[in-house]
């Protein structure tokens, strides 16, 4: 890259910043403000009736709860997968690496249908699980599974580059100084990976909260039991109740934003606390 004396190292900052703002404005900000504008046609009383009815509250609890559990599962197993991919060589590694991304590429409805087929009473997994008296499809457990499936790549793909940046010498140095493997993990590796892991968790969580396609098949959609919040939004739309639909969506969005902000702050805090290495 040719760089003459200028204020910034990279060229075209003004243009790129302008483009970034217009792009974000057109693609994210405008649609979201449109969403909130629709809600304003409701009075406060109508708004509260809509977003605080027992059925909607139950759906929120389920959507956020299942998304949280799924993101947690992904944080644990995603870290493991990323670790294995970075630190070990084994036959078929490229294949495993490619497999991780597949949930990104698959249309979520297809994922949902496939999972339901597997876990329902006569499916490959389902028939054995039900023989043990454990029903997965059409219960909240099924919802968590669907959300775990779609969230996995987020954790693996955010943690993987960070792990790659940590030199094996660091671990070896710790080991030669007499640290046990567990100490190496908790004192050396985990602090470096923590911020990335948190952001992977956040992405998986955010994705799962609004997920509709993959869940609607496996959940069974029973009111108060397995009805997710996005389904309630769809039922509003089926009644041509646009304002009601956007009200529920707006509350979800606000709650998600608050949660994401909290996790982001937490991430910054861990970053400072553990003094991240270069590359994180």
């Amino acid at each position: 890259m040719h760089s003459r004396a200028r204020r910034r190292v990279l060229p075209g900052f003004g243009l790129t910043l302008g483009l970034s703002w217009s792009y974000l404005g057109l693609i994210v900000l405008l649609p979201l403000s449109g969403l909130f504008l629709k809600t304003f046609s409701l009075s406060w009383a109508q708004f509260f009736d809509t977003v605080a009815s027992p059925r909607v509250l139950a759906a929120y609890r389920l959507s956020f709860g299942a998304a949280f559990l799924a993101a947690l599962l992904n944080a644990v197993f995603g870290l493991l997968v990323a670790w294995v991919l970075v630190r070990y060589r084994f036959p078929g590694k490229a294949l495993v690496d490619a497999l991780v991304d597949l949930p990104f590429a698959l249309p979520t409805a297809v994922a949902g249908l496939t999972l339901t087929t597997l876990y329902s009473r006569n499916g490959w997994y389902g028939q054995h699980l039900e023989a043990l008296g454990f029903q997965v499809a059409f219960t909240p457990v099924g919802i968590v599974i669907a959300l775990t499936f779609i969230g996995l790549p987020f954790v693996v793909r955010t943690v993987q580059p960070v792990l790659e940046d940590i030199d094996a010498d660091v671990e070896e140095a710790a080991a030669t100084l007499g640290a046990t493997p567990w100490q190496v993990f908790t004192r050396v590796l985990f602090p470096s990976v923590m911020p990335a892991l948190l952001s992977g968790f956040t992405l998986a969580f955010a994705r799962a909260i609004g997920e509709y396609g993959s869940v609607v098949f496996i959940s069974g959609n029973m009111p108060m039991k397995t009805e997710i919040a996005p389904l309630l939004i769809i039922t509003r739309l089926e009644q041509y109740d646009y304002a009601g639909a956007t009200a529920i969506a707006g509350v979800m969005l606000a709650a998600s934003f608050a949660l994401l902000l909290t996790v982001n702050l937490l991430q910054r805090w861990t970053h400072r606390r553990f003094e991240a290495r270069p590359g994180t």
Partner: protein
Amino acid sequence: MKSPSTRKLTAALLSLLLSAVPALGGCSKPGAAQGEPITLLNVSYDPTRELYTDLNAAFAKQWEAKHGTKLVIKQSHGGSGKQARAVIDGLDADVVTLALAYDIDMLHDKGQLIPPDWQKRLPSNSSPYTSTIVFVVHKGNPKAIRDWEDLLREGVSVITPNPKTSGGARWNYLAAWGYALRKSGGDEAKAREFIGQLFKNVPVLDSGARGATTTFAERGLGDVLIAWENEAFLLTEEVGKDKFEIIVPSVSILAEPPVALVDRNVDRKGTRAAAEAYLQYLYTEEGQELAAKHHFRPRSQTVAAKYASRFPTVSLFTIDEVSGGWKQAQKKHFDDGGSFDQLYVPQAK
């Protein structure tokens, strides 16, 4: 001063934008001149895909022979309510052929795209073919299901989609409602009890009719599927004659999927003549034959007589008889806080 790479990037972005503009503007081209091909868009619901593929080919051929101009009919399928919302939001439909009159009513109420009396413009309530609601059971009918009454029995598991999200499910619900009303001599309290009992036997609420069919046929869930007659035929003929059989209840609902011209769109595009002819074609002997072949009940007496063996006789009531039309039915039963919510939510706790 801009660097060459920035200029190149700007140029690339600009050309990308410019190339997108004609594509965006292309669909609002005004009326086709003589000899130019005409394109119609039929926005329909899911189970009519195969029917309209046949109807469109046949009508386009007839049109071309008569007028000498090429006619292309495009199809769009999806959930009935979703399709109506797309048209309201600006999908350029020339005609809509949906599952419920309520969805077409909304083209007037929410979009001002059609006049309020649209259903009077074509014969038979603007529905060229009808259908009804029947049961599909496993081969040999192990639970001995004969009529609506049997769906309430303990140990019988019933598959029907969610009336809040599926037009087909609303027909199912109203069919059961109508049966219960008739049986109790018009006692609504008894009818509500009947529906409550029925839905106690429903283990899963799929969001659409096809989803429910899949749950029943592929997942092996449930003893009986409540379904459109044409879907039931499709299931028994295509998935397995040796696996399922159709049970026709003593009484059911006359399902009338309506069709309508979207005035605002055809006038803007100059396609009114072709779109009108297309809808009228559905009522011709040829159109009726095709409907019958795809297991929709024809309106034409002669065609109906010809295919009588395909369609078992059922005593049918209309939606007006059980509920005074779709708007009232929607409000009373399916809107939030309506009878479906009341009957279903409390028992789920």
